[in-house]
């Protein structure tokens, strides 16, 4: 049974962790609604002297652009991890089965890609010249789908699933594909959820795709759109330093940084409750006792 002391100990540590995490984030929220001039004059203060939403106002000024960018981000953040699970899961399953005689060779094939890369320029040339991904919305959904890390993670978890289950299904006449979809995936919910979730959020936060491959503003994802806003704001601020007569009220560069971060990590808070159920206990792998 549970050791009460141990549980209490766990609670304490995890509570401390909560404080260490939530307090700085709370501070970030507070700073994002501070007045820019106050920050410049008095430095960072946890309780803002004046509440000021100008950073958020600046971001949401152009609602259609924000909506479009959010749409692109949602599209890519959902499609991409789905493809990741499909591509990495299939090969991960194949590698987990000892009957696959060539799995060590395939592993090596994957390993090389993890260690060596052609570099940014050749990748860019191929993606734009031969694969037509420049200013193409697909670029948000097809890059970086297969990584050795994910394959290895999935393979390890899949190999924990007892072969007796798989053999039982084969006797029933199921193809490997069906086994993968109907047995393996459902039994691996935690790891699949982890990969899906981290892929989704990593994708959400990554603005390098838009930076390098998109110049059409209708195809920006939200993160790049926000980065752009920050860049234009700081650019304007630098220029106004030389020409004070053109300065309007302080352009919210500092507060903009904070507002951007809060917007970026909102998805975590919103999506997490749905992913959470895959992390609850009771996902027992025990349908067939050994």
């Amino acid at each position: 049974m549970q050791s009460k002391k141990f549980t209490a100990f766990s609670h304490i540590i995890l509570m401390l962790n909560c404080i260490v995490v939530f307090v700085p984030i709370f501070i970030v929220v507070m700073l994002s609604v501070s007045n820019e001039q106050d920050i410049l004059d008095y430095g960072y203060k946890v309780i803002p002297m004046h509440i000021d939403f100008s950073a958020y106002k600046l971001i949401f000024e152009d609602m259609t652009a924000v909506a479009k960018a959010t749409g692109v981000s949602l599209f890519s953040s959902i499609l991409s991890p789905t493809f990741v699970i499909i591509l990495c899961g299939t090969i991960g399953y194949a590698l987990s089965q000892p009957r696959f005689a060539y799995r060590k060779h395939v592993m090596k094939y994957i390993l090389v890609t993890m260690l060596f890369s052609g570099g940014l320029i050749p990748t860019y040339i191929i993606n734009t010249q031969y694969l037509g991904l420049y200013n193409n919305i697909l670029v948000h959904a097809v890059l970086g789908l297969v990584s050795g890390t994910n394959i290895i993670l999935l393979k390890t978890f899949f190999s924990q699933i007892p072969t007796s289950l798989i053999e039982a299904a084969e006797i029933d006449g199921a193809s490997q594909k069906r086994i993968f979809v109907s047995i393996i995936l459902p039994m691996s919910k935690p790891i699949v959820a982890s990969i899906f979730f981290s892929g989704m959020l990593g994708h959400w936060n990554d603005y390098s795709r838009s930076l390098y491959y998109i110049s059409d503003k209708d195809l920006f994802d939200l993160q790049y759109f926000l980065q752009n806003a920050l860049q234009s704001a700081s650019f304007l601020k630098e220029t106004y330093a030389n020409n004070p007569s053109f300065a309007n009220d302080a352009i919210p560069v500092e507060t903009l940084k904070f507002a951007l971060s809060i917007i970026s990590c909102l998805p975590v808070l919103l999506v997490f409750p749905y992913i959470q159920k895959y992390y609850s206990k009771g996902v027992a792998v025990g349908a067939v006792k050994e």
Partner: protein
Amino acid sequence: MISRDNSQVHLKRGMGAVRFKQSIPYILLSLPAMIYLAIFNYWPMFGIVLAFKDYKIAHGIFGSRWVGLKNFEYFFTTNDLARVLGNTILYNLVFLVVIGLFFGMFFALILYEIRSKFFNKLYQTAMLLPFFLSYVIITAITYMFLSPSSGFLNTVLQAFGASPIKWYNEPVYWPFILVFVESWKQAGFASLYFYSALLSIDTSLFEAASLDGASRIRQIWHISLPELRPMACITIIMRLGSIFGSDFGLFYQIPMDQATLYPATDVLSTYMLRGLQDGSFGTTAAIGTFTGVVGLILVLGSNAIIKKISPENSMF
């Protein structure tokens, strides 16, 4: 200890045709990913030749002239190399042990103890959140603590009568600061994979063990920890493979690119950014090739070692 991994099963050798026939469905399953890698990873690999060329954009990759090992020479004859490589490797080793292994497993284990659904959700959210914050913000937060004139740390120090420290001038504190910040950001997320492994344990095992009179600690030692071993091995092998990589945001943005701190904060990626000219792709490619080769050696090496200790967890 109940072994539930199936890799002990081996086919008899010499049954080539049968092996092939049995492998076909798996080959088919592997094809999508392998084709993907062929297009997006292997095809651009021809670019590794850039390591041996003096790349001029207008001449293209194939038109630029060969310079043999000159790009490598450039990299190896710099004066700061020892320090930069030393920092990179040391930090990565510390991160591996402290964050990848220790915190990863520790948090997974204690989270596993939490029964209440509400607290479980709360704690997991807290563990995940820092991972998704950008380093821009984390820099601002560290600055709030470390600012020499108005930071929290110095204010507290002065309240206790001690003299304030010029945090951004003294390299000696920074290994601790960086390890702390990186743990804050990554530990929670690292533990999630270990936690997934724990979830797949059959809970009846724990019941059986406690009926036998085992304390919680012993239960963890004998049941949970072994479940974490595969994940731990993967962590070791993969982090060793990327031992020359660094989280750029951590080493560049957090110390705010303060030159006096370089002895403690300069790693390969920040060094590359600073020391190389604009667009010298040749040298970048050379360093990439070099680190790739060393990474390969490390991965194969650590895999061989793990094979000797617990063969089921090796990757090849």
